[in-house]
């Protein structure tokens, strides 16, 4: 039974230029779930994650990570942004990008050393990218770039993982590899929150789901709430997905 709350969101409203993107969201994410956030384009999925991570300032509401503000709990949280949010022509290597995951625990000014390098190499090994460690990042395929991003989050050794569309533009093999790692994280008691697009795979990949479209439509166990009713409410059209078990 999950009872501890990892992320608690109350009355969250976020607006760009006075136009609400998220409206009065209340959401409690229990510890140890592998949760998908689903919703149409412009539903505020990425904005929700960015607000939790204090990257975007909400105009109202509060967000708590294990009962405290994000600023105090930074070390418990790892983040995988959308692959398209960075310039992959940046002059650096796969290993160096993964090392960036250690910058948070290092804090200001301190440089990464042998310990951080070792952790980064281990993370690269976990995502099957060790042999690419010195590869310039623009020379990696989309799937490999996504694995590098995942490795960068793993190296943070966090309790809660936020991932913004980790399956976007990756091949089937990489998708399987990534979801297996996410399932392992859940097994280890971590909480994993994923912005997800492919509704067909929700029941197979996730055990918890949040339907979002500016407002929160529903949140809970996939087996209880992943149904046509909620999908229709979220996407606004008659939605039919075959939901197994």
């Amino acid at each position, binding site marked *: 039974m999950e009872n501890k709350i990892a992320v608690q969101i109350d009355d969250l409203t976020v607006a760009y*230029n006075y136009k609400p993107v998220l409206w009065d969201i209340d959401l409690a994410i229990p510890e140890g779930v592998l949760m998908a956030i689903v919703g149409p384009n412009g539903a505020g999925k990425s904005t929700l994650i*960015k607000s939790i*991570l*204090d*990257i975007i300032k909400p105009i109202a509401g509060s967000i708590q990570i294990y009962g405290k503000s994000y*600023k105090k709990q*930074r070390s418990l*949280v790892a*983040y995988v*942004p959308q692959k398209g*949010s*960075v*310039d992959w022509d*940046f*002059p*650096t*290597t796969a290993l160096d*990008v993964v090392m*960036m995951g250690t*910058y*948070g625990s*290092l*804090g*200001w*000014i*301190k*440089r*990464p050393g042998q310990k951080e390098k070792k952790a980064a190499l281990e993370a690269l090994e976990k995502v*099957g990218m060790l*042999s690419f460690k010195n590869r*310039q990042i*623009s020379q990696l*395929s989309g*799937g*490999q770039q996504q694995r590098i991003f995942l490795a*960068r989050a793993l190296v943070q050794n966090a309790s809660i993982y936020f991932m913004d569309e980790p399956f976007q533009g990756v*091949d089937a*093999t990489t998708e399987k590899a990534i979801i297996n790692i996410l399932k392992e994280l859940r097994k280890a008691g971590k909480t994993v929150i994923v912005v997800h697009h492919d509704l067909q795979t929700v029941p197979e990949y996730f055990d918890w789901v949040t339907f979002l479209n500016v407002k929160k439509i529903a949140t809970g166990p996939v087996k209880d709430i992943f149904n046509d009713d909620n999908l229709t409410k979220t996407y606004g059209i008659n939605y039919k997905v075959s939901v197994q078990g």
Partner: protein
Amino acid sequence: MSSAQIEIQLIASLVAIACAIPGTFLVLRKMALITDAISHSILPGIVIGFFITHDLSSPLLIILAAASGVITVILVEFIQKTGLVKEDTAIGLVFPALFSIGIILIAQNANDVHLDIDAVLLGELAFAPFDRLILEGADVGPKSLWIIGSILLITLGLLFAFFKELKVSTFDAGLASALGLSPIVMHYGLMTISSITTVGAFDAVGAILVIALMIAPAATAYLLTNDLKKMLLLSVLFGVSSAIGGYWMAHALDTSISGSMTTVLGLVFLFVYLFAPDKGLFSVLYRQKQQRIEVSLLTFLLHLGNHKEEEERHVKHLNEHINWQKVQSKSVLDLALKNNMITIDNDIVSLTNKGKNFTTEAIDYILTNKNSEIENMKDRFFLFRG
């Protein structure tokens, strides 16, 4: 070389280094245009500072000018945030406005101040050695040297202290923010340093060359390396060598130093743009040609594999059956022969065993795109690459 010549080259080199460091990050952040804006819009800061202090190298003047540089950035971002215009338009609106305030201030007080627009825009490095810094009666060198030297020291100190923070906030501002390494502080820090460097270099090389010294060396270095540290070093190297090369060019042609330096910077970029090993124009064209031949070769081998009948494999028919306008069929045939992939008997082409294996493997590689096998496939598949 006279001591004035040495001093001029020393000042030019320090200016080049001080510009190349923030320039590298500006190029990577795709903010090259903002240096153009800053270099112009610091003019009102310089003029007001000059009215107060009557000294072009006073620290107050540098602070005021740097402040107007930062104000430029804030104004540009403010206009951009309204969502009514894009960033380039916002830049185009802000800096002429500030620059014109500076020009009006100069024109109105032209009789009282010794500050003319030509000097501001183009600078005059040749006069730099005449303005000496006198400490307790002793001549310790040109003022410009001390100013740019101090700015360079500050820049280097900040670079070493915050290299990691600058790197992560440039590459992935979202992550930097989530990790608590405030990308906003880095952004305004970089803008402040760029403004200060611009002011410091201004006196010596003028507003136009400052932009060139910030952007051209970094853009050149970007074409040559995939490593941020090497990119910084190369930028510095290109900046300094162009500065010194430009000085001697001006000396030989008896012309403007800053103009010559900018010309050399442009020529160096052009040379690297054409001849850089990976990203250079010729290397890209060469690679595209090789790819075309590779694809043609594969198409050719596939065709041979698919057809047992002799008329389909006759040398003359191949030209018609495979669309080979872009690649000479002869070069493909020669290549296949050279690699023992085909044999030609009475003008009938047949695949050898090696050719058959290669074709199967290549098709397999293309269809599955197995990441783990790319490495060992590559050497065999891409015949022409090193």
